[in-house]
């Protein structure tokens, strides 16, 4: 039945591409989470009146985040080709897509982290200070746990955006379902391949959303 609906689909290649998409999404989500969190913490704490208030650092980080968040992803990939080939040694394949994916998504996530931190009641941070907490303790025991639901829902949104980015990266040969849909599907006029790749991407997105929602709900004790 499935064979007749999707006559041109090479299932081995399809699973291989699915695996590559999942790999790219997972790896880029992991690094985006770490780098975005660090950038978000810096943005938050160096803002005026905050614990590390520092105009220059805050401005520089802000500019970095805004610039990379504003460059359209497809252009960012092209701009980063020299950087990628220096870092990874090639500009093809899933690993070669990672630098662009992370640099494209981390600033976006950093903004979400900043918003999450800004939602925290200032009084709670003040209370921690009044108890003699160090800034490190405030980050670990106040900022991160108190914004956990927002951090999780933020990384869910970012991760889903990254699935879309991997497909775009596919156009320049990153591999994954994007490459498959473009090269095997679109360029060889096989709509069933495009359709199957789309279905698999949708399934990946739904699963991420489902896990993200469940974790957010579990973390929220408000």
């Amino acid at each position, binding site marked *: 039945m499935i064979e007749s609906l999707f006559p041109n689909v090479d299932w081995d290649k399809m699973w291989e591409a699915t695996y590559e998409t999942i790999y790219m999404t997972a790896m880029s989500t992991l690094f985006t989470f770490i780098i975005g969190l660090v950038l978000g913490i810096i943005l938050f704490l160096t803002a005026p009146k905050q614990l590390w208030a520092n105009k220059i650092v805050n401005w520089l980080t802000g500019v970095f985040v805004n610039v990379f968040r504003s460059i359209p992803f497809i252009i960012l990939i092209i701009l980063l080709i020299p950087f990628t080939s220096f870092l990874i040694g090639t500009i093809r394949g899933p690993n070669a897509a990672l630098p662009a994916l992370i640099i494209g998504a981390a600033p976006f996530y950093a903004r979400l982290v900043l918003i999450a931190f800004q939602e925290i*009641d200032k*009084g*709670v941070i*003040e*209370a*921690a*200070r*009044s*108890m*003699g*907490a*160090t800034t490190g*303790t405030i980050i670990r*025991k*106040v900022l991160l*746990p*108190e914004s*956990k639901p927002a951090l999780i829902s933020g990384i869910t949104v970012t991760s889903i955006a990254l699935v879309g980015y991997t497909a775009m990266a596919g156009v320049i040969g990153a591999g994954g379902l994007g490459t498959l849909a473009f090269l095997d599907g679109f360029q060889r006029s096989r709509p069933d391949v495009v359709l199957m790749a789309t279905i698999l991407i949708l399934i990946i997105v739904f699963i991420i959303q489902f896990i993200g929602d469940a974790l957010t709900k579990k*973390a929220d*004790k*408000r």
Partner: protein
Amino acid sequence: MIELKQLTKTFDVGKTALTAVDNVNLTIADGEIFGIIGYSGAGKSTLIRILNGLEKPTSGTVDINGQKITDIKGAELRKARQKVSMIFQHFNLLWSRTVQENIEFPLEIAGVPKAKRVEKVKELVELVGLAGRENAYPSQLSGGQKQRVGIARALANDPEVLLCDEATSALDPETTDAILDLLVDINKRLGLTIVLITHEMHVIRKICHRVAVMEGGKVVELGDVLEIFQTPKQEITKRFVAQVTESEDSSETIKHLRELYPTGELVKLIFVGEQAEQPILTGLIRKYPVEVNIVQGKVSHTQRGAYGTLILQLKGADAEIRKALEFLDQENVQAEVMAND
């Protein structure tokens, strides 16, 4: 002992400087419950935050039990803060932690090992009357219970001073009284000095020993609570005192009483401390041929004794009434004839 010397704090607001705290000098004794009252913007929030170094003063010093809070910073200041803890108007609990974990938080900061933390929390939960609620999250607690957690958390590191930042302002009157009773209890049991800021004279009346009235960053009046209630000097202090005695002083009340008791003189008596327990009225009735009718009476208790007002209707010859008023004056009871307006 807490000593504030020539404490001033100015903030830059655009091009102008705002003086939030203006040359404040105060000495607060050990074990005292000291109140600072003022309207919002009077500088009391800034003042209390200077006491634990959350704000740095522009000039002046704060000395708490021999340590100059205003001179230390970094690790030394963080260590000192464990002995000068604070509770807040909006409780400022971590919603992501249970009651148990919230109270453990300052102990974690102080580096107390887990077993000891659990033991200490058990004791504190008992003290503030929250036994059985250890595993609840703040969202499952009422306002009064949240403040109890706040208090337990503040007491975790055995502080010497407890700072209360409008600690009851977000609570209903009944819960406010329960929390105030708890603070008095803690003050007596642990011998801890309490410094509180509020805009409610009720709070001052109920638990404070001494009070400072702040206006425009300055302490405009300072004294024993009873004394302040009896003879408020500044206009602002009178307004605060009126907060708790309002009902019998308002012109509507007087007018209403006049309508009910159209004859004779209406006299308001103010008793303070021991007088409130003396049989002054008996003396008055026995000595003078005047008819005495009690119209309204009220006794308020402060930590430094009772404070009462009594409104009497005196009927009789004018000369006798005048003599009766003189008698009251001799007995050191403040008496004022309520105006006929």
